């Protein structure tokens, strides 16, 4: 019925008597970058977990192209199409940077070692880490680790990538290198759904901004509109506060 790559329709989710999501709807087109912002504990990570099929919704549907991924049984198959970049990187500590990028190709896509290696190197180059291919996670800086995490997601050639506060665990001087990689991906036409507190990034890179609070979307639209002329007073309050707070992090 539609051309949207991802369609989130009226999602409800509770944990016990904690109603975390209360009717979330939005969509994402191919090549689009959307940024979700909102106070912590609002359910942003929960949305990403739902899209990644780590938890089922209580109500509502999520469609990836034409497949209702809340009803599918091919969980592992569909997850290959959805990249995930974690706040804590989630790198496999016993593998080199290259090994981390390769493992999904060899063990999930059953690709030959040589081909996987080529793709891994290509993706590491894309995030500027071709010279760190043989380093282990413990030998990398936080920013480098996260770039490996992005390369690992990219190597699977996903239809979209989810980012859950990819720079929140980083020292301020390291956020820039990660944001720059993400910015580059956006211009290259990667489809991305990003949860972040980096307002400068959100404002300049997002095609659309989603402002969430207490399990509902209060407002979504062009970043410029939300930043300069929001409909909801809470949007203004939140965005202004964070912009001040995080001004220095973004460059």
């Amino acid at each position, binding site marked *: 019925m539609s051309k949207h790559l991802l369609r989130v329709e009226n999602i409800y989710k509770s944990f016990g008597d904690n109603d975390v999501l209360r009717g979330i709807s939005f969509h994402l087109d191919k090549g689009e970058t959307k940024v979700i912002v909102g106070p912590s504990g609002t359910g942003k990570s929960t949305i990403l977990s739902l899209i990644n099929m780590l938890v089922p919704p209580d109500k509502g549907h999520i469609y990836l192209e034409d497949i209702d991924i809340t009803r599918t049984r091919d969980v592992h198959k569909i997850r290959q199409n959805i990249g995930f970049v974690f706040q804590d990187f989630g790198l496999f500590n016993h593998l080199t940077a290259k090994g981390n990028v390769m493992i999904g190709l060899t063990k999930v896509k059953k690709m030959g070692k040589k081909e996987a290696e080529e793709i891994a190197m290509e993706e590491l180059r894309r995030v500027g880490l071709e010279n760190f291919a043989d380093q282990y996670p413990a030998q990398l800086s936080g920013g480098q680790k996260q770039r490996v995490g992005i390369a690992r997601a990219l190597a*699977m050639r996903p239809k979209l990538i989810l980012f859950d506060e990819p720079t929140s665990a980083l020292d301020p001087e390291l956020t820039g290198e990660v944001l720059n990689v993400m910015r580059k991906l956006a211009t290259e036409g990667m489809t991305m759904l990003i949860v972040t507190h980096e307002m400068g990034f959100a404002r300049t890179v997002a095609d659309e901004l989603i402002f969430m609070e207490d399990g509902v979307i209060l407002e979504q639209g062009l970043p410029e509109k939300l930043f300069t002329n929001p409909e909801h007073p809470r949007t203004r309050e939140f965005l202004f506060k964070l912009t001040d707070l995080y001004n220095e992090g973004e460059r």
Partner: protein
Amino acid sequence: MEGTLVTIKLASISLLLGFCLGLPMAFGQVYGNKVIRGIISVYERIARSIPLLVILFLIFYGLPAVGIRIPAFTSSILALGLRGAAYQSQIYRGAIQSVSGSQMRAALSLGMNRLTAFIYVILPQAVRAAIPPIGNEAAIVLKDTSTVYAIGVSELLRQGHYFISTGSDPMTIYLAVAFIYLVMTIFIKGLLALFERKYRIPGIGIEGES
């Protein structure tokens, strides 16, 4: 010395038995349901609370009362192995749990199923975490094989005893026995260090930087 060989046999077979039982028990503890977890933890509690000698006597002297007769050597293996399983299970469980949950999550996000993720992501890291405590356990089991002396298995200690009863100087013999245990323990430690070096992940640990 034959006794040394018997001791080595006792230690290695019972360690193997402990491994074969302990690893599935660890799986059950980590991934099993409530019932399985309950049963295993009761077993662990019991096996770790009874002195080895009592377990040994139960098997060797107790079971014949209900018509089960097990030779001394096999009884020894059973006692050491059944108790060892409880300790090894704990070691593997700790090792698996030491690999953080975010690793499993990351593996799933790549499209791996749980088994693949376990084999290629969790296990390689858990094995590394398990090496030092397993070396420890091996040394303990090795030394505890001397307990089976009590039911007449002629392992190292009993053989030493035999030499004394035929006229050798007790001090000399017991020192020799002690020395042999020491050598074997040092050998285990060396083996362990070798494994640790081989599987060391660069960047982690004291001599980490490369």
